[in-house]
Every structure is written in structure tokens, then in C-alpha cells.
């Protein structure tokens, strides 16, 4: 057979074996790419993987005394930090608040950012679009301290606890009083009934504009042919949005959702600048709790703080993995 093919000049492709270059040859060939990736890998290792060794402190007693005496972490305590964690009612309350505040805020952020992005996308005039985008992005660059000051002024219930003197109330209370919606000023920031609502609004005011950027980028990638075809088929604006725009955005929405889900346990600064003694029950989050018992203490307990951090990471990992699995089940694809 082989002889025949030689004589007839035909090629037996099945018999051809392409020899794959060895690993070293390939590595040498792409050496510049590997060299370029080294700094990134180094940063990843030094700032993300190396610190993970600190997880072991969660299973130890480790504070200034251990440092001062040079004896190092005392691992004999085992799971004591976790036992303390789960028996502390303040921790459990802060865990509940963290999940409620973060998940509701996440849902609101998805809805608001997508809706605003769609609205911006409809603006025809280039300068008008840029102006609206600029105005919406600006609050993102304000610090939370400034945002809290602005909202505190706007929402002030005035300095008179009897409510008789309304001259010092903030803008919002003044409007509500004037219109007759309320009879006396509402202390929005010191009431457990209103605090979360204010916090959600403040978050959306600050971050919604910034959140639209990724959706606007995705919207610009949708083929105009689809809209043209839909228009020929008689679809109006609303139907085009429902049947073309939103399905096209689904992947982006999913990726943003899952990535943000990984950060739900990290809420801190926005709560820290807004909360007070009257609203701990609805506002205290894990990061604030950690700050109070850990860093703000004269005797920092690094073992306990690490245990809280480890617990947070585990919860985040579970949330991300679960949402990715759900995504794969429903849509056939996830991001992990």
C-alpha cells in the first residue's frame, strides 16, 4: 500500500504524524510573552496568594501580647475564634444586615444601571448624551464622607426635638412639610424604619451613573441590523428593547451580577459614615463590627479579626459559586 502510494503519487494523510515541539521549545518560542507575564504573576502571588498564609491566624490567639513577647500565635485555641463569632449576637445581626443591605443594593444597582443606560442610549444628540453621562458620573468621584454630609443636610429633621421649630429642617423635610405629606419632620437617618431606604438611595445616587458605563459599552456592540429587521417586522421601541436589547445585554448583566456578588460582604465605608447609635439594629454590617472589635480596639485581636475575614471570604465564595451554577443550569453558561 505504501509502495503503491509512492508510485501513484497520492498522499496518505492518516499516516502523517505532526511532531509537537517539546515544552521547552515552545516555552523558548514564546519566551517574551512569558517574561511579560512575570510582573503580573509576581503581583498576583505577592498580594493575593502570599497573604493567604495569614488564614492560619484564624485558628490562633494572636494579639499584641503574643507579638511583644515574641512567642507568636497560640494555635492551641483551635476553633475558639469561630465559636466566639457564632455565639456573638452582634455578629449574627451584622451578618444579616450585610446580606440584606448588599443584596437589595445589588438588585437595585442592576435595575437602575440597566434602565438608565437604556435611557442614555436613546439620547440622539451627542453633546446631550455626553452632558447627561458627565452629570451622572460625577457623584462617583465624591468620597462617602462628603455624600453623607450632603444627605445629612438634605434630610435633617432640624434641631428642635419637639418639632415645633421647623426653620432648621433640611430641604427634603421642608418640602414634605410644605406639601403636607408629613405633619412633623422625619428623622430619616436615625429611624430604623427609614435608614435603609436612605442608604439605598444614597448608594444609587452615587454609583448608578458609574454602573451604566459597562452597559453602554455593551449596547454599542449590538448590531443595528437587528433593530432594522425588527422595525421592518413592525416592532416598536418597546418591543425592540424587550426582544433585542435586553437579550443582548443578558451576558453582560450576568457577568456584572456575579462579579458584584463576590463583593457583597465588603460593604463598609458607606455604612460607617451613615450609621449611628439609634440604627445599629438595621445598619450594623460585618465590616463595621470588625472595625469596632478589631482595629478600633486598643488591644487588637488579629486571630478573631482573621476568623471574621475568613468567614466573609467563604460566604462570598459560596455566593459566587452558587450563582455560577444557577447560571449554567438556566442559561447553559456561567463565567467561572
Amino acid at each position, binding site marked *: 500500500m505504501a509502495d503503491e502510494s509512492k508510485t501513484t503519487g497520492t498522499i496518505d494523510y492518516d499516516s502523517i504524524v505532526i511532531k509537537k515541539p517539546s515544552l521547552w521549545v515552545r516555552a523558548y518560542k514564546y519566551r517574551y510573552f512569558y517574561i511579560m507575564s512575570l510582573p503580573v504573576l509576581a503581583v498576583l502571588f505577592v498580594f493575593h496568594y502570599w497573604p493567604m498564609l495569614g488564614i492560619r491566624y484564624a485558628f490562633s490567639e494572636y494579639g499584641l501580647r503574643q507579638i511583644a513577647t515574641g512567642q507568636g500565635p497560640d494555635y492551641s485555641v483551635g476553633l475558639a475564634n469561630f465559636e466566639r463569632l457564632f455565639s456573638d449576637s452582634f455578629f449574627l445581626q451584622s451578618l444579616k444586615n450585610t446580606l440584606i443591605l448588599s443584596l437589595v443594593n445589588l438588585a437595585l444597582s442592576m435595575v437602575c444601571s440597566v434602565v438608565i443606560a437604556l435611557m442614555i442610549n436613546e439620547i440622539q444628540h451627542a453633546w446631550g448624551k455626553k452632558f447627561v453621562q458627565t452629570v451622572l458620573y460625577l457623584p462617583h468621584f465624591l468620597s462617602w464622607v462628603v455624600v453623607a454630609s450632603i444627605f445629612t443636610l438634605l434630610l435633617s429633621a432640624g434641631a428642635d426635638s*419637639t418639632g415645633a421649630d421647623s426653620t*432648621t429642617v433640611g430641604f427634603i423635610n421642608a418640602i414634605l412639610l410644605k406639601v403636607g405629606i408629613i405633619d412633623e419632620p422625619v428623622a430619616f*437617618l436615625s429611624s430604623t424604619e427609614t435608614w435603609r431606604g436612605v442608604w439605598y438611595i444614597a448608594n444609587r445616587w452615587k454609583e448608578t451613573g458609574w454602573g451604566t458605563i459597562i452597559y453602554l459599552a455593551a449596547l454599542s456592540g449590538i448590531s443595528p441590523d437587528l433593530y432594522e429587521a425588527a422595525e421592518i417586522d413592525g416592532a416598536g421601541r418597546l418591543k425592540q428593547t424587550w426582544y433585542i436589547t435586553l437579550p443582548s445585554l443578558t451576558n453582560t448583566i450576568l457577568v456584572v451580577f456575579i462579579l458584584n456578588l463576590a463583593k457583597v460582604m465588603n460593604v463598609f465605608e458607606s455604612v460607617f459614615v451613615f450609621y*449611628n447609635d439609634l440604627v445599629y439594629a438595621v445598619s450594623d454590617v460585618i465590616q463595621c463590627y470588625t472595625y*469596632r472589635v478589631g482595629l478600633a480596639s486598643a*488591644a487588637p485581636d488579629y486571630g478573631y479579626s482573621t476568623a471574621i475575614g475568613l468567614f466573609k471570604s467563604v460566604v462570598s465564595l459560596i455566593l459566587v459559586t452558587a450563582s455560577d451554577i444557577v447560571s449554567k443550569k438556566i442559561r447553559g453558561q456561567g463565567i467561572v
Partner: protein
Amino acid sequence: MKKNFARKAAALSLSIVMVSGIAACGGGSSDSTTTTDSADLANPEKPEEITVMMDTIITAENGQQDVADKYEENTGIKLSIEQPDHNNYYEKVTLSFASGTPANVIEVGSTYYPEFANTGVLWDMTDAWDQTTENCKNIIDEDYVDALRIDGRLYGFPMAKGNGTITYVRQDWLDEAGLALPTNYDEFINMLRTFKQRGEGTIPYTAAGFMNNNETPYEIYLREFYQDASPDFVYDEASGQYIDGFAQENFKEALQRMRDAYQEGLIDAEIVTNKTSTCRDKLYSGLVGVMNYWAGSWAQKLEDSVQNADPNAKLTAMPAIEECNYIERVPTAMVITAAADNPAGIFKYFIMYSHDGGEGQMLFTHGVEGKHYEVKEDGTTVALGYYSNPETLVEKSFYAPELSITEWDDPIQLDERIYSSLETFEADRVFASLPLTSDVISENLANLNTVKGEVLANVVHGNMSVDEGLEDYQTRASGYVDAILADLNGGE
């Protein structure tokens, strides 16, 4: 804590006995203890460089390096100053300890000082102070040094007097109403009621929160309402035991006073959301009649700022009413860290030098001649303006001159209001003691203070009655309180 110190003292004594024994036996082994011998303490080696971490030293943009350079010129020692952001100062301090490479000298407030001392990260300067022959020893008010002793040992040296808050009253409002300064609580409340009647927009009394949560003493503000009550653990002379101040009858009365005044509209309705800066702004706007704030240089600053809005405004630092005293905090300390190589040298050439009543004191109080102050042709010495704000005169380079703990001839005369507010304050003040510390307190205090803050705010705001509030407190706080009291009283 006492138990821990007793153990430490026993261990130290044992070590000394053992080391002496080895020495007496003629052992040639080197001394491994960190105790510096008497000869070293009396005449230590001069350090080449001293690193310091400070919170209240003059800022970099206002000539901090000038102070360091002048110090080096005077002493031949390089001074490296680290000044973290004020809001994160103690986070940085504790992290620097955790890193194992803290600065040689650190400024530490009284809330943190005993805890740091307790954990062993500070150098014991007792012997160095006892044996020093520096001029500081002759001119200092030793009460302030003794205020920092823990079981007789000294782990930090006072920077200045602890100072405290005093009640400032709009004197012009009082004059208009034909009232004299109140001398008791009834007159005080009557004054607030009179201020309230001035019309809409008036805030009779403002404060930032009900409990000074981050720093002890917790009851340093709102003095007229707290009176003799304290939300902290207090030592009961009669029983010889520590008791929970929050659960006592006098605290219940204090709660009722605050609640009544708040419900009547005499206390700022925004007290819970106020920051101290918010309170000052309200005062500066001419809205506030009474505010409890720091004595000393603030007496001048507050009145000058109020007068920007109302040139006729006048603030008076009020003597304490008969039911209460003002509270002087334990002084802020300069500590030498246990990790420092030459602590005795640092003690002599930095701490003693800065309290020498002469060149060093001038440098660390008023700064550098020609930069922060100048001597005029007529021989008088006057402060210059800050680099960053030439309109405002330099108050201090590090130590507040009006709070000096040494007897020295300060050439710069301050505003009279500063001295008079301090005089009024000191006439009616009691000294706070160092906060209690132990591992059990550290573990429970944050949560306990959260409960206290919640109960206080809810009672005063009228969300619950005083009795309901105290019942809620007993329910939620008893675990923390019992643990702390058992620890405190178990060591007696």
C-alpha cells in the same frame, strides 16, 4: 490587669534573683534581660537617630522638617518623624506594633496607653525617671507623671496636662435675658429654656452623641446632665469592688435628666448624628447657646469664630454647676517602645530634652525661631503665621504651651481667654484615672459600649422609657458586664 501585673512583677523579681544568682556564682554568661543598668540610665549612649510616630506634632506643610532639622542641629541626633492621618492614627500605631518595627517613640493617648503597657510593647521607664539628673526633674509637676503610673511603674511620659471639656455659654444671650451664669442644675435648665425662647432656629444645647464612645472618660461631655454618674465601670469604695456605673441609681437619674431636656427641645435633636465638627459649625453660625468643649486654646478659637457670624457674640467658659465637676483626662503619653535599641538614650536625649525648660522645651512647644516664631527688636517673642495659612498664628509645634507640665519661662504670651478658661476649668475639675484593661475587658468592651450607646440614644429619644431602657440593658449586656466584673473583682 492587676493579676497580670502581679504575675509580671513576680516573674521580674524571680528573673532578677536568678540573674543575680548567676552573676554571684561568677558565671560569665551575658545578661539576657532587657533591664538597663544604673550606669546606663544615668549616662546613656547618645543615639544617632530617633524615629518617632506622632499625631499632634506640627504638620509637614507647616514646617515639621524644620523642627527635625533644628533638633539635629541642637543635639546631633537625626529625628525621623512619621505622622499618620489623624483619623487612622491608632490603627497605624497598633499595626506598627504588629509589624514588629514600631517607631522608637510614639504618642499614645490615655485610652490606649494602659492596654499597650499591659501587652508588654512599651519600655518601662520607671528607673530612668527615678535616676535622671536632667533639669526636667526639678521643674515638672510630678502629679502628671504619677497619673501615668500603672501599679507604680511608668511606661510613658506625659506630654502636657490632660485637659478636659468645659461648658461655653453665649454670654451676650445671657446678658440680654438679664440672667447670671447658672450655679446649679435648676438654673442651668432655666437658662436653656430662656435660650429656647429666643425664637426659631435656636439650639439651646448641642453635643456630638451622648457617650464619648471612642475615648475615655465616656462622660466627659454633657457634664451638667451626667453630674456624678458614669456609664463606665467604677470603683465602689464602700464595697471595695468595681461596679457597673450604667446600672446605678445615679445613672438612672442622669438618663432621666437627658431624656427630659431632650423631649423639651433643650438638647439638639440631631445629637446622635452630630459630629463634633457639626456642633462647632452650628455654634459658629450663631445658632447654639451652650456647648461643652475643650478648655484652653479652643476658648479663643470658638469665640473668634462665633464673632465672624455675629460681632457682638461673646462666649464665656462657665464654672461647673454645683452638682458636677469637669473632668481632666489622663495626660497623653510619649512612650518608648520595647523594641527600641537604646531606650535610656532616647529617654534622655528626646523626652527629657523636650521638657528641659529651655532650648528643647522651646523647640517642641513653639518650633523654630524665624520659622514659627520671632524675637522682636524690643525683646518680645511672638508667634508667626502658619506656612499654609499665614493669617493664623502657630499655636504649637508639639506641646500645647498653655498645658505645660513644667515650670518654665515661656516667652510667648497667649490670648487671655485661653488662660482664663483653663483657670475656670482647673478650679472645678477632678482627675480621671487610667482606663481599666484586661483581656476580658478587651474581648467584651466593644459590644458592651454598643449596647450602652443604643440604650442611651433610645431612651433619650423617647423610643423607650428609662426603666424599659435599663431593663433592655440588663437583658442584653449582662453577659458582658458579668464577665468584666468577675475579671475586675476576681483579682482583688
